[in-house]
């Protein structure tokens, strides 16, 4: 049995993997999309890049809330 935390981790990982992969694929095959400036004169390359950094931290914090003492208790059943 995997723990609930393990499963949540894998789901969050899959989500981040998708947004990271989309970024890499756009940069490699459609770099002109990165040149567009949809917001405040800032281009997609920078917005998406900052977005990936912020997303990593936000997902990490979300995952961290599961690590509260209450969260730990609910995870115990599947834990080692």
């Amino acid at each position, binding site marked *: *049995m*995997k*723990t609930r*935390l*393990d499963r949540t*981790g*894998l789901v*969050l*990982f899959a989500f*981040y*993997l998708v947004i*990271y992969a989309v*970024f*890499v*694929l756009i*940069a*490699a*095959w459609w*770099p002109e999309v*990165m*040149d567009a*400036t949809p917001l*405040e*004169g*800032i*281009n997609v*390359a*920078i917005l998406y*890049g*900052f977005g*990936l*950094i*912020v997303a*990593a*931290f936000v*997902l*990490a*914090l979300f*995952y*961290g809330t599961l*690590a509260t003492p209450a969260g*730990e208790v609910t995870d115990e059943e599947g834990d*080692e």
Partner: protein
Amino acid sequence: MIYEASPLAIVVFVVFVGITLGLSFYLGGRAKTSQGYFAAHGEIPWFVNGVAFAGDYLSAASFLGICGMIAFHGYDGFLYSIGFLGGWIVALFVVAEPIKRLGKFTFADALDAQFNSPGIRLAAGISTLAVSIFYLIPQMVGAGVLIRPLLGIEEHWIGVVMVGVTVIAIVVTAGMVSTTYVQFLKGGLLVIFSAILTVFILQRGLSVADGGNDGHAFRTLGPMTAEQFDRGDLPGDAGLTIIPPTGVWVDQPFIRTRDEATDREVVWSIERENESQQVTLREAQTLTVTADQITLVNGEVKGNKPGEPQLHPIGWLSKLPAGKTETGPLGLVSFLRTLHGSEVVLWPSIKLVADDGATTTVFYQKRSPGSQVLSPGQHPQFAGIRSGKLSDKLNFVSLMLALFCGTASLPHILIRYYSVKDATAARRSTIVGIGTIGFFYVLTLYMGLGAMTSGAMDVTDSNMAAPLLAKSISALLFAAISAIAFTTVLGTVSGLILASSGAVAHDLVSGFAGIDLTDGQKVRVAKQASAVVGVIAIVLGILFKDMNVGYLVGWAFSVAASANLPALVTPLVWRGVTKEGIIAAVVVGMVSSLGWILLSADTFQKVYGIDPGQALTPFSQPGIVTIPLGFVVLVLVSLATRGGRSFPRRGCE
């Protein structure tokens, strides 16, 4: 450029290193057992460990390499920041829990938790050593680069030896406790001072210039018609005679002129407008090493003192939006927006080699729209993404994959999970690490672009961009940033040496060879191994001094991800893994990624100095092939050797 020692820099530097060593000796008394030496008794508070993650991870490559790459090529350097940070998601969500649950001192512990196989110990130990030593090379090279301007010394090897000896002293005296606190101190200071530097950059704003901060104004001739240029009729500047191209100068996009008054030779790059057919000449800079090993700058013997011939510092804007000449203080968004609408002078270079072995490197101005500089595809390594060639695109994807997968496979990062008390603390410290590192990586974009427009950069050395940016703002800031950068190298190197010594003592001697060591003996073996690995690192740092730091780090990430990640991740999702599968995956991943790198076009060109066209691999970055290969080998070998055995999934006993 002249690197003069500044007394302030030396004082700050000595204080930093003194505190680091003092801390090390003080904490050394606490690490008498192997549990203390390798894992700091598992007693490091999670917040300290989290910032120490940042200290371990933000190596010379992150700080010097990324800032330099952004300063010279724009956005492409930031791609490394994005990839390096993305890797932490793998570390947190996939690797942290099982590593902490199953291991004790080294990552081989976690791999071997359910098999108890000397073969796994051997493979994982060797892979730890291989990755650590690969990762050590750029750190040591970086140390040599840093120490020269800081202490005003000419020799690269002195810096390498200083770092090596200091680090051996740190690791041999105290182990994980002291390296952790050194990392905490350094990681915290690096982020704080980077933030201060960013504030100064934004306060300074952007301005238009025609040269760097040494006061030399670079000249432009033209635009002129193509006919006028062909006649040799240079506009607005009498007294310049065109030197007819001979030798290496034939068929190059440059012309040379001689100033009749001063007899000085100047090299100009030739810019041709496609539509109007007009020609503009822009002053370039040259660095020549003659066959007799004499160094010439712009045709004159290079000097060592102020006023003598030196390459001029670079980094300025040729245009601001709406015809402005300066902006005044800017905000985080307006800085990027203004730069996007500006025109930046970049300095690519071409190396010309004469028949007698003399080399001339021409550094020439390339005016680039800010919108281009802030988009991917400007650096030679990334230019392929705009070329339409599939192999170039795959090379890019492969690098981004290696950066993403490499972090969670680096031995010195993995061992940090053992210095906190439990899985919760491991998780929390990773979150602190991601926050600290992510914040720093956002700052790298501002620091890199700030350096790009600082007028202070050394055209020959992109690794110096961040310290020189600081120097252009204040001497104190320069001293602090240089000292922090130096401790950055110290910290990362001590982490790597500790990981290697753990691999030798715990995995190879004790685990594989089966030699029963007492606790004290294990620590003693590890300390001896530290000294040996330290000496190897010093020697390699001297041998590889001309290699690009970022490039070498790319190697280490590719090898780490290919060798270690499949073995770490597969057992989490598949019950059928066997010990033979794990050993095969580590060995095949390590050998295939190393082999690919050694046979790639980049290595042919940069290491062997032979025609990259003869390379045996279709592109240079191995990750996209060798990481999946590791997974495939693990599954196939496990299926072949399973023989009806069924293994319980790890962590559920």
